[in-house]
């Protein structure tokens, strides 16, 4: 139960860091931290083996989305 609370606190802290970070590129690592914490919450809430698959799919998908945003933003700033 304490692991779930730690994951929730990390998610809220990273969400506030996303809001109060000025640089747009520096928001993206904290978005990844929110995603890691949320996938941990998913696994810790559901006591089933299928939750591992769902959390893995969520982790891979959100990392893909964040990297797409980051690479497009970096390419837009260059040219």
């Amino acid at each position, binding site marked *: *139960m304490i692991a*779930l*609370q730690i994951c*929730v*606190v990390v*998610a*809220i802290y990273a*969400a*506030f860091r*996303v*809001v109060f970070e000025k640089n*747009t590129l520096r*928001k*993206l690592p904290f*978005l990844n931290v*929110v*995603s890691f914490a*949320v996938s941990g*919450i*998913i696994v810790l*809430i*559901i006591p*089933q083996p*299928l*939750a591992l*698959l*769902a959390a893995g*799919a*969520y982790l*891979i*998908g*959100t990392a*893909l*989305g*964040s990297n*797409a*945003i980051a690479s*497009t*933003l970096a390419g*837009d700033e260059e040219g």
Partner: protein
Amino acid sequence: MNELVVIGAGSIVLIGAVMAITVRDRYQKLIYLSLIVAGVMPFLAEKGYLDVLTVISLIVPISTFFILLACRRNV
């Protein structure tokens, strides 16, 4: 479900929604859209909708990619 999880996920969704409305930058709007999706996921997991969670996790990056293609060009 733990009340801390409800309060935390709900506050993440509310923060993402309010900031996505108020912010003017295009990429920051996409970032807060991802924050909304991250906050919705524990509510799906709490009811046991694991198939819905998996499908949403696979659809959201594709939709993010298409929104990026739409907002990359300077209209």
